């Protein structure tokens, strides 16, 4: 599979502060890689190096075999503005026209209006737009050039729940059509809904990288959730109460359920599902240490 983005042994220093230390990551065609890590881990620095806005102190960053930030590289790349803060005198249509003028084969304005739900706002001046409306423009600008790779820094911050789900569908479709993505987000459902790989960084270093499915499979834990009006000793001993429900994380859910049934406890609304990525990562990293 073709490598579309590659950061090789990148170190970035700001004076005496080392923001990135020997960071390496790779994105292949058709992959959606979530860049994870706590605040101050170096995610934004890594993103800005990929965007060509910052230069590494050492190491290299390449997109499609060209230096990050070069016109040849950026012709195939879409970027969301860091914050959706646009000149208020102009309309979204005027912004999109400016953006598309830089690309050889951009999307049509009509396509962008329809895909990102801009019909109501497209010819209104941005002054007075809500955060969500501005965020939709930011996403449309990112995809305006018909990119092969998009770099999304907190793409759905400020969007309502439905718009977040709408964006997940757009992103999934983009990946399905062979596009690639680098994404940062604080919303775990969004990360799991879009990304198939993760690169976790902490203190500027890569601490974990791999496919989400592989990490979850390696952890192998499931969440058992049930409702019990009058839990007996078995349920209350192994499960944690969450409202009217009881939950437990188990490595062997089949055995657990068999024990539940044989114990004669009364329960309903039983669900068994893999644990979330955030929990899986905690377990995975704890096991590594």
């Amino acid at each position, binding site marked *: 599979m073709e490598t579309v983005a590659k950061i090789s042994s990148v170190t970035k220093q700001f004076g005496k502060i080392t923001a990135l230390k020997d960071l390496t990551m790779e994105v292949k065609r058709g992959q959606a890689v979530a860049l994870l890590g706590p605040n101050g881990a170096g995610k934004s620095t890594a993103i800005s190096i990929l965007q060509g*806005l910052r230069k590494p102190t050492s190491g290299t960053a390449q997109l499609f075999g060209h230096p990050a930030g070069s016109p040849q590289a950026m012709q195939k790349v879409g970027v969301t503005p860091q914050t959706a803060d646009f000149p208020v005198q*102009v309309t979204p249509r005027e912004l999109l026209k400016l953006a598309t*003028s830089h690309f050889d084969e951009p999307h049509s304005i009509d396509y962008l209006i329809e895909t990102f739900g801009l019909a109501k706002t497209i010819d209104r001046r941005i002054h007075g737009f809500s955060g969500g409306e501005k965020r939709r423009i930011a996403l449309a600008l990112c995809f305006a050039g018909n990119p092969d790779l998009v770099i999304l820094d907190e793409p759905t911050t400020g969007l309502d729940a439905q718009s977040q789900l709408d964006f997940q569908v757009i992103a999934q479709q983009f990946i399905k059509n062979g596009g690639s993505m680098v994404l940062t987000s604080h919303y775990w459902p969004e990360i799991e809904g879009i990304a198939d790989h993760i690169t976790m960084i902490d203190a500027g270093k890569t601490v974990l990288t791999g496919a989400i499915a592989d990490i979850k499979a390696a952890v192998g834990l499931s969440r058992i959730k049930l409702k019990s009006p009058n839990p007996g000793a078995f349920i209350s001993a192994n499960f944690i109460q969450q409202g009217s429900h009881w939950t437990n994380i188990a490595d062997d859910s089949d055995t657990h359920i068999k024990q539940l049934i044989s114990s004669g406890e009364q329960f309903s609304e039983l669900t068994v599902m893999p644990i979330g990525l955030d929990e899986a990562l905690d377990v995975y990293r704890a096991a590594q240490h």
Partner: protein
Amino acid sequence: MTMKTTFAHIKFHFIKLLRTPAFWAPTILFPAMLYAFFGSSLPPAGIASQMAIASFCVYAVVGITFYQFGIGIAQDRESPFDSWLKTLPNSSKPNGIAQVVTAITFAMIAVGLVLAVSTVLAKTTLTPQMIIGLLGACVLIAIPASLMGLALGFAASGRAAPALANLIFLPLAFLGGLWIPPIIMPEVVGNISTWTPTRQMAEIAWSTISGQAPSNFTMMMFAAYTAAFAILVYVLIARDKNKRFG
């Protein structure tokens, strides 16, 4: 860089500025208005009246280029939108060209208004030769004035730039003899005036009316100021680039 991209940036800059009347109305109208207050009372047929036209044309060009680059760039530097523009392929040159084109266009509109007011209100006219010479001088003057603006834009914060621009430009306009002729300034002020960049700009503009070439001192000072501003801008851009994108 394509023509399509450059035109898109020029159009975008014009739209932004035209929809900000609080910016363009005072900067375009002020020079003509001040000429109407100070210059139009001079005898219409005299050289003093024609010199006043040249002074207010310089005021228009320096004011617009200095304010547009000074305040515009200082505010752009802090804007996430400006950073995003840099991620578009080949955006820096078209964006820069668009800023220059809009500044020169607005400056020329302001110069045109001064000429129109002088003809209509003061009945003072310039010969075609004087007008051509004056327009040429305005283009030349725009170079150090733009560099001065760029220096401010890359040195000051977006919030401080408007106040600093006023603090720098208004005294320089007065000291340079753009509002009142240096000959009627108090001696001390007149001595200071001789050394200001705006005075050299004004001398060059006045020479197109008087028909006498500017003095060597004026041309040397003009060149020295232009070079000094250019070096300052170069240093400040490098500092800014390192700070924001290094």
